[in-house]
């Protein structure tokens, strides 16, 4: 007696969004099946893996990172190295130095770094702010202006600054924009509705639905993604069909499991190994739940996660 499978191929699809200048462009989303269900129908685009590069440099205490970036002193050099990482399809430059509670680097300095990094790499670029809403708004507008025509993806517009960023980054300078909400399907949809009412085309935006490391309230991330993908595909909800981009590295490497040194917790073993597994395991769960792109830090994580994606196609 043969088994009768009923593939779930939907009449709706996740939007396909292309960012990056011609010649180095990359398309996210586009599929009409549940995440990674390539056995139901071929995925229009495989989920993408990006590398996070901080403008404050990589963490030198991690031997694997130090070895990988050895000799790359400047941020553009590190970004170029990151772009060449096996499995990496885009680079995400994180402007940590702009944080008013940290280095408080000036907008001009940050924009200069972004430009230099853009010139140094041959892959599409995502520019991420420092999480301080006021500073990010000012900063990302200037970044959008400086890279006009380069079709970069800016992260992120939030409820507080979507008007400014939507109007300037997307409508005036033609960049792509990520809307960020706090792990809730209604908040995510509301932000998308507000941006579309502003005239920002849905085809120019992606969503960061929020992220968490495995074990740290990840059930909310997983269920929010499950619900968003269900609404997008089964109900053809155009306000939830944007591709999902999830920064995993920053979450995974900032929990206790990845921070405590081996000396503090000898039983746990190598800190680097713990960080890598936290990053890989969180990323794999995000991809299974619906991320169309994940952003990671460690070369080993990037390699493993991209190999897993390839093996599933």
């Amino acid at each position: 007696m043969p088994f009768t499978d009923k593939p779930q191929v939907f009449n709706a699809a996740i939007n396909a969004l292309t960012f990056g200048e011609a010649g180095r462009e990359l398309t996210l989303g586009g599929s009409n099946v549940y995440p990674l269900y390539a056995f139901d129908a071929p995925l229009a685009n495989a989920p993408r893996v990006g590398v996070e590069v901080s403008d404050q440099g990589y963490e030198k205490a991690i031997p694997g990172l130090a070895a990988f970036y050895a000799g790359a002193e400047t941020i553009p050099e590190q970004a170029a190295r990151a772009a060449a990482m096996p499995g990496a399809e885009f680079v995400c430059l994180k402007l940590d130095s702009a944080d008013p509670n940290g280095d408080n680097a000036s907008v001009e300095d940050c924009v200069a770094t972004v430009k230099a990094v853009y010139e140094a790499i041959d892959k599409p670029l995502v520019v991420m702010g420092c999480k301080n809403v006021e500073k990010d708004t000012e900063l990302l507008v200037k970044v959008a202006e400086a890279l006009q025509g380069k079709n970069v993806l800016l992260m992120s517009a939030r409820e507080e600054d979507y008007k400014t960023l939507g109007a300037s980054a997307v409508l005036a300078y033609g960049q792509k924009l990520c809307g960020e909400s706090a792990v809730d399907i209604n908040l995510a949809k509301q932000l998308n509705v507000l941006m579309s009412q502003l005239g920002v085309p849905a085809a120019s935006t992606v969503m960061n639905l929020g992220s968490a490391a495995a074990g740290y309230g990840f059930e909310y991330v997983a269920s929010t993604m499950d619900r968003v993908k269900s609404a997008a595909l089964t109900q053809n909800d155009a306000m939830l069909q944007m591709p999902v981009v999830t920064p995993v590295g920053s979450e995974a490497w900032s929990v206790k499991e990845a921070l405590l040194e081996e000396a503090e917790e000898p039983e746990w073993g190598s800190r680097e190994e713990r960080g890598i597994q936290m990053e890989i395991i969180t990323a794999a769960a995000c991809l299974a739940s619906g991320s169309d792109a994940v952003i990671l830090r460690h070369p080993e994580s990037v390699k493993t996660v991209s190999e897993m994606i390839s093996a599933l196609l």
Partner: protein
Amino acid sequence: MALKGLDIFKLTPKKNCKECGSPTCMAFSMKVAQGAVSIDKCPYMSQDAIDKLSEQTAPPMKTIKVGEFSLGGETVMFRHDKTFVSRCLYAVAVCDGMEDAEARLAKVPQVDYERIGERMHVEMVTVDHCSDQPEDKYLALVEKAKALGRPLILGVEDAGLAAKAVAAAKELPLVLNGANEENYEAMNKVATDAGIVLGVSAASLDALYDTVAKLEGLGNKNLILDVGSASIKDAFAGAVKIRRAALKNNDRTFGYPTYVNVAELAPGNSHMQGALASLFTTRYGSIIAMDEMDYAKALPLYGLRQNLFTDPQKPMRVTPGIYPLNGADENAICATTVDFALTYFVVSGELERSGVPVNLLISDAGGYSVLTSWAAGKFSANTIANFLKENDIEGKIKNRTLLIPGKVAVLKGELEANLPGWEIVVAPKEAVQLVKFLKDLAASRA
């Protein structure tokens, strides 16, 4: 198709005797139709009717017991639809062809800890037999694995050897994983004679389906389905299609838990095994076996599992008590927040990042977030003050500074009145601001 209440009602005695606990036969029938009560609660149902109904009202996915553990019994594809009921289990897999099988077994107990009231350890051990190895070697390895005292999954396809291995380990809960298209009759006999779960594998999903149907025909419904090790793509497709057939398409032939050996899908690659274990934890693996469970994999995997298998309607809570962070002693400042696990993890994580020693005091706030529990009266000046008194905080901690969440700054005055001698400090509204806040606070008092 699920049975309607009216269809069930037709089979009841219609005498409204209330012996089943429902006020009327109609009410009882509606509950049975929803799966809320079992049909055999009615003492007057004819055996014929019970047989007819229990077949049709049976859950779409069977619950399979292995010792104290339950597998399967799921009713929904996504946890937000209701909840997942049986968390997946993790196993370490060894085979008799491995040079270091014993060393691997010796490492199984290395991970064993508690996280939010749940014991995190390797729940099962898989012992596989390679056909080119002598039988005695396999049985010796089973003997070694037995010493761990955990349920064993015996991977053997030879019915003769399987019977010997099962007999050798009969005091433990067992899964005999080795039935396939060819040997299912002989393997079925070994498993049913011993009363243990039988694992079934096949070269394709069609062949698996066919073999399960034949085993069910032989009367065995105590099965686990092995998604195989042909490729990562096939194993993932198998896990999803099996679960989907049972829950979405009501095809009970595939209504069984699955077994995934990620060690065979990514031999020797610990990182890929971590990625795949995560993938199958998220999507429909019931038992996930791997080469080794070290802390690097365990910490994120068990955390992920604990998150995904919580009931969305019941918030995860931490036990109330004093949590000393960053080596806090009796002189360290105190901070308080609610017992909602997510709040606890976010807040304790930021407090730890600050490096400042803090005694985090968690009181019983009903498992809700700060504002919700405050609105419900479960996190108020009174509950906090009572917690401090009941737990003799003043006797245990000398410091008299208490940080309260910025979102309940309104409690400051009342707390000062309730807790004479204490300095109540309002912390920031968002956890991300805690690191700077604490560092500044510590610097100002140094």
